[in-house]
């Protein structure tokens, strides 16, 4: 008996150590599992057929005559066909009647995904003013008087909300819920406390699709993005891994994309090392300046949060002027490469396949010979003219 117990505990210790043996120092060995699921989610497709869709924090469950939607804040809303009786146990503002006809949208990502579903015509209010938009379908909406500016996200105009006759507000800010309850308006929280993974990023369209009755378009969109991911993986397979970092130093804070964010997972999928792979949490997570600079010494590529056109930052020199601390970051020397998103980058999730391909092309320019950047600007060493002409 004694020997059995000793052998059993020895076995347990061996098994405890086993999962750690395959990990390398940057923990990137765990990556292929996540990315495989993003590219080949057959299991998830089976679940969708069974009426269950789970994407990170978001869930759709089909019930008899209605659906349950769990949003990014963990709230469960009932999604019913227009005119159908409300299911019991749901307060009126927790019931959404579909297909949606008039929505207010906070996030640029959501706006772009709705456009990918071909239903940009349902967007009647946004929280970015007209001059903050770089996509035609929203600019046109403003010009035609079809889209209203709700006000800044921190101080929206409730009168405009009332007069917009909305079916739903999609927001990243759950603090508006009590006020919207008073106005009798349902709210869908589309952001999560933890950064969105790659799988959720490319399949989020499937979560929003039933709200607009556009499930087929969501499938087509997903297939297109999935194909681009497969191509990225095939093109970058076996290439030498560049080291990349994504973030910025601001006046008092250092913010980066954590290892669980979709960009970090994409970098891993595209045969590259993400230097903040061990950081876990929300998108734009705060880390210490020492850690940022330490990783910066090893990096080959640097992606800044600062939008090229808006911060008047068109060169490495300009970036160093804003943040002299960045001097030790290798990509900001002539030996490395730094990239800034162009103003329309954050509003172009409806071209997710192109965004993913562009990031892969930046990581492996040799595999994408002749590729012309559309969403990012490669920062020159010295100041030059505005990049807007390049987009």
């Amino acid at each position, binding site marked *: *008996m004694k020997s059995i*117990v000793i052998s*059993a*505990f020895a*076995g*347990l210790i061996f*098994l*405890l150590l086993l*999962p750690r043996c395959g990990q390398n120092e940057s923990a990137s060995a*765990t990556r292929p*599992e*996540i990315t495989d699921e993003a590219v080949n989610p057959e*299991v*998830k497709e*089976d*679940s969708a057929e*069974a009426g*269950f869709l*789970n994407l*990170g*924090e978001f*869930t759709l*469950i089909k019930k008899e005559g209605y659906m349950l939607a*769990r*949003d990014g*804040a*963990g*709230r*469960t809303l009932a999604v019913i066909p227009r005119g159908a009786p409300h299911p019991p*146990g749901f*307060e009126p503002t927790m019931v959404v009647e579909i297909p949606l006809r008039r929505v207010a949208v906070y996030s640029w990502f959501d706006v772009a995904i709705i456009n990918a579903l071909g239903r940009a015509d349902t967007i009647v209010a946004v929280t970015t003013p007209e001059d903050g938009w770089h996509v035609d379908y929203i600019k046109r909406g403003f010009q035609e008087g079809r889209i209203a500016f709700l006000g800044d*996200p*921190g101080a929206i105009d409730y009168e405009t909300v009332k007069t917009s006759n909305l079916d739903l507000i999609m927001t990243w*800010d*759950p*603090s*508006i*819920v*009590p*006020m919207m*309850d*008073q106005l009798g308006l349902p709210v869908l*929280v589309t952001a999560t*406390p*933890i950064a969105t*993974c790659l799988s959720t990023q490319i399949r989020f369209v499937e979560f929003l699709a039933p709200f607009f009755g556009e499930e087929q378009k969501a499938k087509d969109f997903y297939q297109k993005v999935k194909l681009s991911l497969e191509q990225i993986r095939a093109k970058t397979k076996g290439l030498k891994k560049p080291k990349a970092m994504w973030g910025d130093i601001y006046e*008092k*804070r250092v913010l980066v994309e954590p290892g*669980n964010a979709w960009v970090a997972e994409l970098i891993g999928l595209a045969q590259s090392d993400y230097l903040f792979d061990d950081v876990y949490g929300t998108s734009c997570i705060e880390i*210490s300046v020492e850690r940022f600079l330490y990783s910066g010494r090893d990096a080959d590529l640097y992606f800044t949060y600062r939008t090229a056109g808006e911060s008047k930052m068109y060169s490495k020199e300009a970036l160093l002027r804003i943040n002299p601390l960045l001097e030790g970051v290798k990509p900001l020397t002539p030996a490395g490469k730094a990239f800034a998103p162009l103003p329309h980058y954050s509003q172009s999730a409806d071209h997710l396949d192109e965004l993913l391909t562009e990031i892969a092309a930046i990581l492996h320019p040799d595999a994408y010979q002749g590729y012309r950047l559309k969403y990012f600007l490669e920062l020159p060493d010295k100041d030059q003219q505005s990049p807007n002409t390049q987009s």
Partner: protein
Amino acid sequence: MMNPIIIVATLWKAAGSLKLSVALCFLTALDAALAYPLIKDSTAFAPLGDVDLINWLLTYGRFNLKSTAWFFVLLILLTLLSINTFVCSIQRVIFLFRRNKISLSFFLKLGPHITHFAVLIILTGYLGTYLFCASLPGRALTPGGPPLKVNRIKGQIKAEIFEPLYYEGDRLDFFQGRLLDPGIYLTFIDQNGSQCKQKIAYGQPAIFNGWHVYLSDFYPKDKSGGMGSKTVNITLRRDPAAFVYLTGLALFVIGLGLYTADFFYKKTSKKDG
């Protein structure tokens, strides 16, 4: 044909076997150890506290088997371990009753068995929680903003202004200006209009009309954060099984007390005699 009484007696004896206990404990530990790397990147468990267990098993559990299979195994192992503990404890208590007169030392010897029964009650309580607890997660409040109306709690909840306590020391420079205590006070208004004010913090829920109000998150977490907006995220829970595992915990403490007393009683008896 075998006598059914003999079959039951054999099964009863096997179910209370100590070897089975060791094997089940080992397998449970092994299962939990294997689960660690599997749950690290999984979001499937997040709704477990909000959705009842059966529905969770049929949806999140079933369709995320890569990261949830261990949990199905754990449920089976815990069920077997509970049966084993129950049978084993009953066998031992019967044995004690047969071999001992009712005395102080007899009661003290019941200590370990009471802790075992307490563990079973705690497990039953948790099972009850996962099966029957009502949960309303993701409710947000703005301090000074409109009250949150939830029909199910028969009242309204209002967030008072933050009374934050920031880190002002100079030993940890990185934590300068970080929030140490959000000092969040909620006002509860019942259907009659009467109000009560309660403080909430992580692990310090407020109680209103039989519902526990937990702090899930809050913003900003430091002086410079939050982009100007202040938000308190709460989760409302009503757990009819809470008293079961609280009873189990109390019983466990009693059992542990008896066990400790028995240890000292034996020591003193040895010394005296």
